[in-house]
Structures are given as C-alpha cells and as structure tokens.
C-alpha cells in the first residue's frame, strides 16, 4: 500500500509524457490535481487503516518497506496542501501551456521525492529522495532562466552538493560501524563503541541536514533561492521542500537513528536559537517582500529545530505542529507575495503602500498569516509556539525559552513593518489601478487562512488525535 504513494505519481508521470497528442498537455493541470488528490487520499486512507491496525499485505515490490506513522501522515498533509497551492498559483502565474506542463512534471517529481523522504527507513534511500527533491528544485528555481533565478539555483546547487557530499561521507562512516544502511541497524550499532567515528558521522550528517534545511549559519543559499524563484516555486520551497528535506529529516533521523543524546540536543537547541534570532534580525532590515519572508522562514525553522532539540514528546509534537503551521502560513504569505508581485511588477516594499484598499482579501489573509507567525492566540501558530515553550520549560532550558519568547516580539516588529509598508497607510503613487488577483489565487489564500484559524480553534482535537501520538517515534 504505501509504495503506491510513490508509484502512482511515477505512473502518472509516464502517462503524462506519453506521445498521445496534445491532449495530455492541455489536461495536465487537471491531471495533476487528480494525481495529488489520489496521493493525499492514499495517505489518509492508509493512515486510517494504520489506526485500526489492519494493514493489508504490503506489496512485494519494495522489500525494504516504509514507515507509516502519525508523523508521516502530517507530512503527507503538508505536502498535499502546499503542492495544491503551488499548482493553483502556477496556473495563473505561468506564461503558457508548455511552461505549465513542464512545471507540473517537475512538481510531481518533487512531490514524489518528498513522499519518499518521509517514508523511507533506509539512510541511503533517504539520500536518493533528498537528491530527487533537490534536483527538481534546482530546475524549478532556474525555470524562467532569468539571471536572478539562475543565480539562486546555482547557489542552491553548490551548497546542496556540499550537503550531499557531507551526507555521503557520513553514510560511509555509518556503514563502517554497522555494515548496513537501514535506520534500525545503524541505530542499534551506535551503542557498540566506535565513539569517535560515530560522533564524527552524526556531526557530519547533521551539518548536511542543516544546509538542506537552511539553519543558521548554513542558510546562505536560502534567501537567494526563495527570492529569485518564480512565485509558485517560492511557495513550494518555503512551504515544504526545505522543511521535508532538512527539518523533518532531522527529526526522523535523530529519533530513529542517533537517539536524543545530550550533545546532539545541545547542538539542535543552540542552532535553533541562533536561527531564530539571526533570521528575525535579518528580516527586520529587508526591503524586498519575498526576501523578508525568506528570513522569516529561517527564524521559524529555528523554532522547529529548537522544539525538536528538547527531545521530549511534547517538544517534538510542538515542532511538528509548528512545521505544519509554518507550511500553511508561509505558503499563504508567499501566495500573497506572488499576488502582489504579479500586480505591481515589483517586490520592493518601499514602493508599495495602502494596498489594503485595493487588495482587501490579500491584505486580510496576510494579516492572519502574520498574526499566526507571531503566535497570537487563538491562531494555530500560538499553540505550536506554546508547546515548544512548555517543552523547553519542562526540560529546564529557561534561557532558550526566554529568548524564544522575546524573539516573538521581533517577529511582530518585522511583520508590523511589512504590513504597514505594504498594506496599510496611504495608497502609494501609481497603484490606483491595482486589482485583486484572480479567483484561483484568492481561493488559495482564503483556504489557507481558514486552515490557520481552524487549526487554532480546534487545537485540542488536533493535539489529542494527531500530535500526541507522534511520541511513538521516540519509542524504539
């Protein structure tokens, strides 16, 4: 069953590229919608089956088997949500049918990569799916072949290749001490001496994942890539790709392989805190809408890493929920940024102003997104930050908790600045004819805003049914 989640898109990809005339090209959008729906349905269906404990015989195609638990389920939901958003925005943003067709192909490949990342149980397969996702992202960033996109793609490619090399080195060292590449074998062998090699391997792997996830100070590529990518690609990158490739993997690998040992926890928490502060301060100084959102992403990634670094069930639940929330509200903000960019032909915030008069829905939904980012109750961002804070408090990390809370004020500061420059105040010159974007983009914004609000209001339900069971990944 789980292998269907990655096999169906491959099949779809092959069907999509069959030389059967222009028919597939035109229907590519609806085909992709159907494909993603199928993928999400499979995930949900499988999840409900896992609940009752009645797994159908896992197909014999992939002997390695897959992990399906509550964590993967949440990741599937995120992947589905962001892919849908990106697809809908692409339909409006892409120039012609041919471009859209290529975009959809790459989007499907990226989503296969991410689905693989969240399911695999083998460290080398993990590397392969990371590469699939990364390669799709390089091409997507360079999609328009403008000079900025190429620059962003090149920087991402170089840093990502370095990360790949680090991870492969680490995999080689793991093979040296365990003789295999599956999570369970490596995890079991880490206890048997070889401390130096093991620590070296763990450190190198974490560094590689930090590069992929954009944790400070490994983040250099991230603002450039987010900023230069075409609108739907920014949504995809910011919403899910870096989270799945870097942060989810970090949580999974640490819980399944390394174990939450003290030095690893210390590194995660320190890196998380540095990211929070660094990202927030850097965001404060930005004039470019998308670049500011990118730095804000770095800051929010910091919260996730900080929460995961506590190593407690609560901290990981908070981190995963923040990951979900971040996928939703950062996609929302990037969707709105793309709407603004498309209308105004610029991302410079100094040339905007008063857009709330002309684009009320974009303005209101951004407000929801940014309030959630700042952790204002009762939006969902509040709850995830609260969980992370409680976890920090319970584990006795008072200083980190204080910094995390104070950084919320910084978050508020830069988002207030953004909101004032872009949406409030007097209508800037030359923007009199700006209109709200098409219904498709507005639909995406409104839907994501409602998810943010809904996840906040129904937090107890989500918490008890989806977040609390995540602690099963800690039990080995």
């Amino acid at each position, binding site marked *: 069953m789980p292998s269907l989640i990655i096999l169906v898109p491959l099949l779809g990809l092959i069907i999509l590229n069959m030389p059967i005339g222009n028919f597939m090209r035109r229907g590519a959008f609806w085909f992709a919608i159907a494909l993603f729906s199928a993928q999400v349905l499979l995930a949900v269906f499988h999840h409900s089956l896992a609940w009752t404990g009645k797994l159908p015989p896992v197909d014999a195609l992939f002997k390695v088997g897959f992990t399906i638990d509550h964590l993967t389920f949440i990741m599937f939901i995120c992947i589905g949500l962001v892919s849908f958003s990106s697809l809908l925005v692409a339909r409006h943003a892409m120039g012609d049918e041919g471009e859209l067709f290529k975009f959809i192909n790459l989007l499907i490949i990226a989503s296969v990569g991410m689905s693989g990342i969240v399911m695999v149980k083998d460290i080398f397969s993990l590397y392969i799916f990371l590469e699939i996702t990364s390669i799709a992202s390089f091409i997507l960033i360079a999609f328009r072949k403008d000079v900025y996109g190429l620059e962003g793609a090149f*920087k991402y490619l*170089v*840093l990502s290749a*370095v990360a790949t090399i*680090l991870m492969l080195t680490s995999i080689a060292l793991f093979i040296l001490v365990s003789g295999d590449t599956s999570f369970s074998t490596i995890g079991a062998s880490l206890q048997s001496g070889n*401390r*130096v090699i*093991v*620590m*070296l391997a*763990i*450190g*190198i792997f*974490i*560094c590689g994942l*930090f*590069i992929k996830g954009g944790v400070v*100070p*490994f*983040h*250099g*590529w991230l*603002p*450039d890539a987010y900023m230069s990518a075409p609108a739907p690609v920014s949504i995809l990158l910011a919403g899910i790709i870096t989270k799945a490739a870097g942060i989810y993997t970090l949580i999974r690998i640490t819980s399944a392989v390394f174990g939450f*040992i*003290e*030095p*690893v926890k*210390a*590194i995660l928490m320190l890196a998380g805190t540095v990211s929070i502060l*660094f990202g927030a*301060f*850097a965001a*404060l*100084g*930005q004039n470019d809408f998308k670049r500011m959102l990118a730095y804000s992403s770095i800051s929010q990634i910091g919260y996730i890493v900080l929460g995961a670094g506590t190593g407690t069930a609560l901290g990981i639940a908070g981190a995963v929920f923040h990951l979900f929330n971040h996928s939703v509200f950062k996609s929302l903000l990037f969707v709105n940024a793309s709407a603004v960019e498309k209308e105004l032909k610029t991302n410079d915030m100094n040339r905007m102003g008063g857009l709330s008069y002309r684009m009320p829905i974009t303005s209101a939904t951004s407000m929801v997104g940014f*309030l959630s980012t700042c952790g*204002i*109750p*009762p939006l969902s961002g*509040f*709850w995830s930050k609260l969980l992370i*804070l*409680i976890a920090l*408090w319970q584990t006795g990390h008072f200083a980190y*908790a*204080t910094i995390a*809370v104070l950084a*919320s*004020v*910084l978050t*508020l*500061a830069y988002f207030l600045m953004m909101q*004032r420059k872009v949406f*409030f105040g007097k209508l800037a010159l030359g923007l009199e004819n700006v209109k709200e974007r098409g219904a498709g983009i507005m639909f995406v914004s409104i839907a994501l805003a409602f998810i943010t609000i809904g996840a906040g209001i129904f*937090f*107890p339900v989500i*918490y*008890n049914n989806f977040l*609390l069971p995540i602690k099963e990944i800690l039990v080995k």
Partner: protein
Amino acid sequence: MSDNILILPILIPLAAGLAILATPKKWRGVKEAIALLATLASLGITLLLFGKSLFYSIPWAGFGISFSLRLYPFSAFIIAATAIFGFLTVLYSSSFLFKKDYAKLFYAYLLVSLSFITGATLSDNLILLLFFWEGLLVTLFGMIALGNKGAFKTATKAFIIVGLCDVCLMVGIAIAGHMSGTFEMSKMNIPIMGVGGIAFLLMMIGAIAKGGSMPFHSWIPDAAIDAPLPFMAIFPAALEKLLSIYFLARISLDIFKMAPESWLSYTLMTIGAITIVFAVMMALVQKDFKRLLSYHAISQLGYMILGIGTLVPAGIVGGLFHMVNNAMYKSCLFMTGGAVEKEAGTTDLAKLGGIGTRMPVTFACFIITALAISGVPPFNGFFSKELVYDGALERGFIFYLAAVVGSFFTAASFLKLGHAAFMGKLQERNRGVREVAWPMLIPMIVIALGCILFGIFNAFPLNHLIQPSISETRLHGESFAGFPTNMTLVIVTVVVLVGALLNHLYGVKKTGNGLGAVDHIHYAPGLSWIYKKAEKGYLDPYNLWWGIINVFSAVMSWIDKAIDWLYNDFATGVANGLAITLKKLHTGSYKIYILWSIAAAIAILVFLLKAGA
C-alpha cells in the same frame, strides 16, 4: 441553574462582535443595535448570576489545562461591573461615533474585548486566563490604531510595552504552574519565597502593566490623544483597572497568600506610592483635557495598588472600593471630555473656557465626578480614599504621606481643569457649543448619580460587593461601612482639600490669565472670601513652591521621556543596527556561505567529539 450558563457572558459579546464585523457598512444603525442588545443581554445575565457560586469545567488542551470558569462573589461583581460599563460605553459611543468610518471596527473590537475581559475574570485556569489576556492585547492594538494619524505608532508602542509585560506574566504563570503542579487558581497556594517571589513579581508586573502603572504607563497619555475617545473612557479608565486590580488581588490574596511582613508588600506599596505622586505631578502640568485625565488614570491606579499592597483589611477593602469608584468617575470624566471634544472640536484647555453654561448637564456631571476623584465628602472617592489612608498609615507614615500629597495635587489639578474648561470667559470659537445628545448624557448622568449614591450609601457596595469578595480570614469580621471612624484622618483630608483650594485660588490670582482665568472667582461667589483672605500672605512661598514643583515636574517629565526613549528609540536603534550588520554580512557570494558552513561544521564536530566521545 445549569453551570454552563457561565459561557454565555463570554459568547454573547464575542458572537455579536463577529456579527458586527460581518454587517455591511451601509446598514446604518444596525451595528449600534446589535452592540446595545448584546451588552444589554450580557448585563442581564451577569445580574442574574449575581450572588451565585458556580463552577464549570471541560477538558481543553491537555496537561491540566482545562476550560474552567468559576463564578464567586468577586468575579461576579467584576463581570457585572464590566457589563454595566460596556453597556454605558456602547450607548455613549452610539452617539459619539455615529458618523465615524471606523465605528464598525470599534464596536467589534469593543465587544470582543468585553468578551475577553469577562472570560479572563471568570477563568479559574491560569492558562485560560492568559489566553483571554493575550487576546485583549490584540483588541487593544486594534482599537488604538483606529484613531487619528499618530495612532498606529501609539498602538505599536502600547502593544510592545503591554506585550513585554505580558511575556513576564506568561513566564510568571509558567513558574507558578511548575511550582504548584496545577494551573487551577483555586487549588494554588504558593509560598512567597525564592522562586515563588520571582513568580509573584513577574505576575504582578503583568497585572499592574495592564492597568498602566508606572513605569509601564507611557502609552496611556499618548493614547489619550490618538485613540478614539470611547476607548479611553472604557479601557484605561475602567475595564483595564478592573481587570488589573482583580488579578492583582487574586494573586496577592488567593494564589500567593501574602502576609504584610513580606518584602513584596513593600514593593507593591512603593510602586503604588510612586505612581500616585509622579503621575499626579505630570497631570498637574498638562494643558490638554484628555491628557490630564489620562495621567490621573495612572495616578489613581496607584491608590489601588497601595491599598492592596498594605495587606491590612482596611487597605484591601479601600483598594477594591477605590477600583470601583475610580472606574465610575474616571470613565464619566472621560465621557465629559468626549462631550467637550464633540462640541468644541478640541480638548486644548487654552481654547476652551466658559462652556459650562452652554453644557450645564455635562458640567454638573463633571463637577460631581471631579469632587469624587478629589475625595470630597460625601462622594464615593472620599470613602475609598479614607480607607486607603487608614491602611497606609497602619503600614508606614511615608505611604500615607504620599497618598495625601497625591490627593492634594489631584484636587488642585481638577480645580484647574474645571476652571479652564468650563468656567471663565466664553471664547468666540466656542459660541456654537450646545449640550450633547441624550445617548451621551445618559451614561454620564447614570455614573454621576452612582458616584453620589456609592458615597452616601456606601454601606451597600461595601457590604454587598467588596467585602464578600475578600475571604473572611483576611477581614477578621470587620466591616468598613459608614462614615470613617478615624476623625483625625478625615480632618487631615479636609485640611488638604481646603489647602488645595487655597493654592488654586492663589495661583489663579497670581497668574491672572491663561488656563486659570482670573474671572472664575466671580462665578463661584461662595468662595471669593477665602480667596481674599489668602491674598494677604504666602505670596513668595507660593512662587517658591511653584518653582520647586516645576523643577520636580520637569524631572518627572524627563524620566518619562527617558522611558519613552528606551521604548521608542533605543530598542529600535539596536535592532536596526543588528539588521544592517546582518545585511552587510550577506555579500551574495556563495563562497562566503560555504566558508560559514565549513566553520560551523568544524565547530559542531569539535563539540561533538569533545562532548560525546
């Protein structure tokens, strides 16, 4: 009666607020009607609930965080007061804001705030309380931001100051919950020692900052100018004081069981005394109706903090009674200010004057409430202040002295305000001033009557509202109703008030123009002989006195500005500096990024090898 009726006073205003948001702008009068009905309904329910004790709890977020509401005399009394003020403010605003663009948003925010305040008051769980408390932060921001041009900046300032203090509250709650193992307030009992003291201090900061005590006050005077007036009449004047003092009383009397010997008691009293004196000094030199009132709103909070901080029965009862009284006369004073603003178009005292005859009802209300705030018998302010004096004297002469000095200047500044605004010669630009419409008058009259009734029949509020709110062990069975028993204190008060009057008359005679117009004496014929007597002496001492006051006020205003600078310039300056530095570090070259990564990777590896192997 089923327990879940407790949700209604929270849900009704919330639903109404959301409904107003959904109403189209063009439907004139609909939003006012919804707001009035909703506040009336919640008023009815809270009155129905009055005197009952209910408890309602459903599991909520896990970890012992349940949605638990507790109604007992204290909270019942606060939510009833909230509902009354809510209703009166909506009534007042329905006329004041009638044609303003932002009326819709204002009503929505107001109703949501009412809901949150009721929720915060009822909640028995600290996390739930925090939830409502933080929600108030957002509506506070929203309401201030609705005002005029500078409002956004003021709103940001308020948001940052109050938000930072709320963070303190959050940390305090976390410590308290950690120490007692539960977040249910009725089950908590924490000794004030070591970490417990810190927890109390943090929660206290959160509580008094909501009310706007020094040094967290600086947004209130700005908001007085920038924010919509009904906001000032209900928030800093009434509801935030109610909530702030309610929570302060809860933490110091219920959760922490403070004893008078505790150092925190002295901390509280000192904060109270400083707030009283400093804020009133600032108020004295203000030249704007609303700004002057806003400093008094800060100063009066000092009496309540002082009263509760004494931790002796008289002080606590006095502090709580003062909270009610202050909410009444201060909101009424702001409403008169609003009436003046609506008619005269300004609140600058230099441009007002003599409009008392044009607006007799407003003026009458102003006189009653000004007398009440100055502590003139038999108005309500007198009785509560006497109780606070009593408590303060019991704990230390210096605190009593601060309270009396505050009283002196309060009286002096209201004499000045009344004179400058309502008496004196009618200026040309104010010819068109007329009495305001009835929806604005009714709340003022009701509250002014309340001030008289709560004064003359003070046994009713004291016996039925205040004293039941405090546990019997605190009160030792005493009752404080009736005329104060300690006649020495009464005589001192009267002397101080008379002194203030003399001082005022003298000052007016001396300056002869400007804000304290000379002619006012003739409009108050009963007072003219005192004035003549006072003329014969004290000339130079007065000048000297005034000089000292000016220097003192200048120092205070400098401190005020320094605090302002800290919030406004220093913090943003540091943040901007860091932001620019970080911007410069990102040179755009991938090589730099690789070098960062390598350096960090080496650091991580060295750390891991040291720590793990």
